[in-house]
């Protein structure tokens, strides 16, 4: 039997920030993709009337839900900024300043998360 082609990340590259950026991009991407069905389900509650959606939004005012939403905002912002860095690298061949771009991506995600936290609490 022919073993499956290996496409796994090279573990020896872990000392470079780009490895961690790749890991964060994958984890954030997986979590966002798995969250989407729940997000669409909640929005579709509008089909059952405004009161039903308002009821759900009222439930979502709980602090633990707000913290979860904040985490989602951070994941989305980090995935966006990290994705822009990857596309600049792949499509525009922008290779300079990768560590700076990774740091800025992380900073952008945290800044958006803090802004959301300030607004909801």
């Amino acid at each position, binding site marked *: 039997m022919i073993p499956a082609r290996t496409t796994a990340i090279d573990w020896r590259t872990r000392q470079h920030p780009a490895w961690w950026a790749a890991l964060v991009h994958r984890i954030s991407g997986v979590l966002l993709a798995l969250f*989407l*069905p729940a997000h669409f389900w909640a929005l579709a509650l509008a089909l059952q009337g405004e009161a039903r959606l308002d009821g759900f939004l009222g439930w979502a005012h709980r602090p633990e839900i707000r913290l979860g939403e904040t985490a989602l905002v951070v994941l989305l912002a980090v995935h966006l900024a990290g994705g822009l860095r990857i596309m600049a690298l792949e499509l525009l061949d922008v290779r300079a300043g990768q560590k700076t771009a990774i740091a800025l991506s992380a900073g952008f995600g945290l800044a*958006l998360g803090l802004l959301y936290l300030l607004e*909801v609490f």
Partner: protein
Amino acid sequence: MSARAETWLWLAQRGAAIVLAAAVTVHLATIVYAVHLGLSAAAIIGRIAGNRAWLAFYIAFAIAAAIHGGIGLRTVVRETTPWRGASLELATVLFVVFLALAGTRAALALFA
């Protein structure tokens, strides 16, 4: 899957990513704006209800997210597990179609 098909998947994923780069920027700005004003369901629906431009935006957003997320999940599965072959391709297609339909349904729910 052939190298040619893998290339098309890569192109579809990056094409969707370009759409998402703009859509997610608008979405994040809208989220912060909505929580800043403390919008109710009525206000959120009122912004989208009957507005064809927002409907088109959210349907395109949902379809791009479905394509990008589905192909991205497939990539992560192939990197981290031995899962390959027709069952993985079928699961990817089902996930993309399900997300695209669920997202379109949600956009239509807010529009109607």
